[in-house]
């Protein structure tokens, strides 16, 4: 009986705690966008071209190398940074140079950018340069209609020819 009373007393004491847990486990609600906004999310991982082109080794150079190291070409590992540009309704909203990852700068470059925009119709242009110099070598331009709370996901898949817009 005493044990049952103790359990009942404990439960009564836990009501405020459980009410607190029950409430804050879901409330207050959170939005990453304001009222009537949509989101442009530029997000991709891509390995750029090498910063320096491969070079043919001369016969003298090859002779100086150990027999098992005699690769015909000398290819520096470092990759070029990506140059990314995003234009919305004729205005450049992002222009960023993204370095490759890794100690030797020979890995993928990761691009991520969030941009809230008013919901509605937008002309979006994405540009990318993945080589050491020159103009943008990938461009995609599209007019998209975004409802409030929706996302335009801008991905880059080199195997599919460049930028992919997903709405």
């Amino acid at each position, binding site marked *: 009986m005493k044990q049952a009373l103790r359990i009942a007393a404990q439960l009564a004491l836990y009501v405020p705690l*459980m009410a607190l*847990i029950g409430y804050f486990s879901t409330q*207050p609600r959170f*939005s990453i966008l304001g009222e009537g906004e949509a989101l442009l999310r530029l997000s991709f991982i891509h390995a750029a071209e090498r910063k320096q082109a491969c070079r043919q080794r001369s016969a003298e150079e090859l002779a100086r190398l150990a027999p098992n190291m005699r690769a015909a070409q000398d290819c520096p590992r470092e990759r070029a940074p990506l140059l990314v540009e995003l234009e919305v309704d004729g205005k450049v909203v992002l222009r960023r140079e993204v370095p490759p990852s890794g100690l030797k700068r020979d890995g993928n470059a990761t691009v991520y950018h*969030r941009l809230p925009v008013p919901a509605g119709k937008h002309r979006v242009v994405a540009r990318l340069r993945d080589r050491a110099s020159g103009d943008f070598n990938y461009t995609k331009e599209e007019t998209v209609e975004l409802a409030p709370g929706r*996302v335009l996901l801008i991905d880059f898949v080199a195997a599919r020819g460049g930028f992919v817009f997903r709405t």
Partner: protein
Amino acid sequence: MSSALKHLGALGFALFWTLAASGIYLYIRFDTSVSGAYASIGEMEWWFGGVLRSVHRYAADTFVVVTIAHLIKELWQGRFRGFRAFSWISGVPLVWLLYASGIVGYWLVWDARSQFSFLATMESLHMAGLGAGQVPDRLFSLFVFLHIGLPLALLAGMWIHVQRLGRPATLAPRVLAVGVVAALVLLALARPATSEPPWDPQAAAQALPVDWFLLFAHPLMYVTSSAALWVLLLGLTAVLVALPWLTPKPALIAARVDAANCNGCGRCVADCPYEAVILKDEKASVFAERCAACGICAGACPSSTPFRSVQDLVSGIDLPDFTVHELRRRVQAMLPSDELVFSCEKSGRKGIAVRCLAMLPPAFIEYALRSGARRVKALGCDEECAYRLGLALAQERFSRLRAPRLRSTVRYEKLGHEYSFSLR
């Protein structure tokens, strides 16, 4: 509630096992693929799987609350320096592991909240490209692995956390554990945990019900920045880890062993609340840096008896700055007396103050009664024992359940943490 506050650590263990038990069933019913995960959670019967799912979620939230309360309480009571530094420092990574386990657990539901949490985590790690589009099954399997591996690491960390504690309280009192689990079940029935709409890469998190206990860092990052979040979290962690060195260390004189009087019985080893005493070559040996100078070891030592006829009473293990010999001298100075009182110095009450009630060898009570005291009282501190086990050990010794026992020729009465003794 005061009982719960005294057992926050043990309550943490109880919640861990609640999470493990509910998690095992949920794992059996869970489809560990991207395409099947969401549906497999929704297909569970509400009256068992659904309740267990809700208990699992709310137990995780309660675990966070209990852990933070445990941290604040120890901090408030200054229990992070000196001999407690190991437990304090080893506890800090557990907070990270707890959060990591909980956050990854949310990803497994594969709904809009999972998407929000996963993207926010990846964004904070500057790896956001990983999850903005489609997530492959292999990556999802990694989440499942993490949600098992991280809690196992947490359990290992909890085991390390209590290694410097004698008789660590890893089992919550039954009433408390049953009460908490019952409260969680009631909460689960009153407010069942539900999924949000399925993961949709083309939908932004809008009016999302966020679990503020486990996922608070995500909104914090969105209203500040990932850099601000990391500075805050890593800075806070660094301060917590450095705290034992940032504050003055208590000047304690560690217990000392007298090999000639130590018979290697091991009672001091068994009773030390901080694992500061070990047996080495069949003699007690003290790790000075772990010693709290509470004197509980001296109270446990069979050679700490005032009936010994030696002029200088030397115990097998003793506090150099408050020896058993000194205690006998103070008792002798008070006799004869109608009522001789021993009190825990933390209680601030009258009488001969001892560091902890368990520093008082029961033989001293009989000694005082046979040497001119009509009654003897022993007053413990009213609050939670400053040396963890003092009150429990004193109770066990006085009630003759633990050596050194109070002899049966002495009658005792207990009222709260006060004991009255008289000869039969």
